[in-house]
């Protein structure tokens, strides 16, 4: 890592001695492209850069800290990462001597790719193969091996989806320096990594609130609130709405539940997103239709829902469920397509 320090206001900036890079400290990739990185060759540049970045907004995130780092004498930029390859269900090592850009933009033949058997694990010959592929000198190669070994260790120990150094810089003095790095941890592994205090930076406050209450919830841009059961069916509901020129406001998967309260409370988050109409699409199995219907009636009363609710109930206890709803004056359909058409008509496009 290059030498550097973090500041939260202009008074903390130390005296200027050599050229530096000023980097916004936010949990987002691609900050360079978004204007979150500035270069300073003079003291005036440095102060201007820090004051411009602090308090600025990068894709909804306010910059509260910046890192001031020595400008490295860059001779070459490499790339190295360990990530999951879903198809082989194995970790893969990727490396290239054309770092500094997003790896997806490079032709496949310029990237070294090694599939690692997760049982056999990493061994240094993999680094040797990468070094040969990239044509690195023995001195740089030695440093590269140490870095790759460590990367794989982190990938395994911390349950990572990705550990990436980009660029991995070869300096004028012949040193390898990790100029920027990104680590993604598998959120399903958090129970055994109490060392991480995780807040997903990509999630909105409402998403975080709904997730904390146990719902799989995503905000979207439309005006139709959506509640369905099962991730696949919920996605299919959004797709069908979109194909009908309707615009979903959210994704909410109830999961498998037979609890009235879980159904009723789901409306709280959908209502906070302020939709024009609400669609509930249920294929009953473990989640029984009468339970869902009771939950909807309860929510309508509790949250005094003014918006029209359109419900599709099919599967276990569908007749009982539709009766409960029609008694409460809520529209219920047996088929998904009729319900989709109806709710799109009510919401009237975006």
């Amino acid at each position: 890592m290059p030498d550097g320090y973090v500041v939260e206001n202009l008074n903390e900036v130390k005296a200027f001695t050599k050229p530096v890079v000023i980097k916004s400290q936010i949990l987002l990739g691609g900050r360079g492209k978004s204007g979150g990185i500035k270069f300073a060759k003079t003291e005036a540049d440095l102060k201007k850069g820090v004051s411009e970045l602090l308090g600025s907004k990068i894709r909804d995130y306010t910059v509260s800290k910046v890192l001031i780092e020595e400008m490295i004498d860059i001779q070459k930029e490499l790339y190295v990462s360990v990530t999951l390859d879903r198809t082989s269900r194995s970790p893969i090592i990727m490396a290239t001597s054309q770092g500094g850009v997003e790896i997806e933009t490079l032709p496949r033949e310029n990237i070294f790719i090694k599939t690692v058997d997760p049982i056999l694990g990493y061994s240094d010959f993999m680094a040797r193969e990468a070094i040969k592929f990239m044509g690195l000198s023995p001195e740089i190669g030695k440093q590269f091996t140490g870095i790759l070994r460590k990367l794989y260790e982190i990938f395994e120990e911390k349950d990572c989806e990705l550990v990436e150094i980009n660029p991995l810089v070869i300096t004028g003095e012949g040193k390898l320096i990790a100029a920027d790095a990104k680590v993604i941890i598998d959120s399903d592994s958090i129970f055994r990594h109490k060392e991480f205090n995780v807040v997903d930076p990509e999630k909105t406050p409402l998403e975080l609130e709904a997730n904390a209450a146990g719902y799989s919830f995503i905000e979207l841009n439309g005006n139709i609130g959506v509640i369905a059961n099962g991730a696949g069916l919920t996605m299919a509901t959004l797709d069908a709405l979109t194909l009908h020129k309707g615009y979903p406001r959210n994704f909410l998967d109830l999961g498998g539940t037979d609890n009235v309260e879980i159904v009723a409370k789901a409306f709280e988050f959908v209502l906070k997103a302020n939709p024009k109409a609400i669609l509930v699409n249920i294929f009953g199995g473990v989640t029984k239709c009468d339970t869902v219907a009771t939950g909807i009636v309860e929510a309508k009363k509790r949250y005094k829902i003014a918006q029209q609710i359109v419900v599709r109930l099919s599967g276990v206890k569908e007749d009982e469920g539709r009766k409960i709803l029609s008694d409460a004056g809520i529209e219920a359909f047996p088929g998904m397509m009729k319900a989709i058409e109806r709710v799109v008509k009510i919401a009237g496009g975006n």
Partner: protein
Amino acid sequence: MSSFVDEKTKVIVQGITGHQGSFHAGEMLKFGTKIVAGTSPGKGGSKFMDKVPVFDNVSETIHLKPDATMISVAAPYVKDAALEAIYSGIKIIYILTEHVPFHDSMEIVHNARRMGSIVLGPNGPGITAVGKCKIGIMPNKIFKKGKIAVASRSGTLTYEIVNAITEAGMGESTVIGLGGDPVVGMNYIDVLKEFEKDDETEEIVLVGEIGGSNEEIAARYIKDNVSKKVVAYITGRSAPQGKRMGHAGAIIEKGVGTAESKIKAFGEAGVKVAEYPVDIPSLLE
């Protein structure tokens, strides 16, 4: 014949006394599944529903010669349960549990492969050989014995499609939930090989979703290796980039895993793709 399981398959349930495990084991018995034992550490010696013996460990069930196991234990304990089954020589391992760390899944899958076991899931609804054997949580009532095999990455959406096939007067041979995680034991190709061999299957339905490129790989495989008619449905057309759509595996990452790419790949392989789940029956014979 059916794929992976049939009327002779002897099943054990790991986690049979848990809330989920006990409910679904009961439903499986009603379906006709041969559950020969269950396990639950500390509850050995009891009986489930007065007939299925419960043991502390899988090794104690070996004398009953189980062919398959259903794992329904909490995510942190899944790896141990799966390795226990692999060590005991059980050949088919279905993992229902959601939120298993994928590093654990990698270890499970690669160890199983070395020991000659097959893993399905994690995070799937199970496998059903209609009229013969059900492992998992699919509703019993949606099936009708027939010639159509279904493989899917989701649960409820699979029921929706199976139900539509049944209501259209057709029926199913084997229905397999592959699981909604980024790392699962069986991909489409693995089950396509079985469906192609199965004399009870005439047509195949693949239900895919955004994330990864296994649908694209399946499409290329179908073109050269599958003689039976294959149709598909892909969900996630409207999903934004970079968001996990409920399933850990359902995410478009850096442009990879889009619905368009999968629909295009199927199109090139001559596989018709339904616009809506309920349209699947109209694409079948």
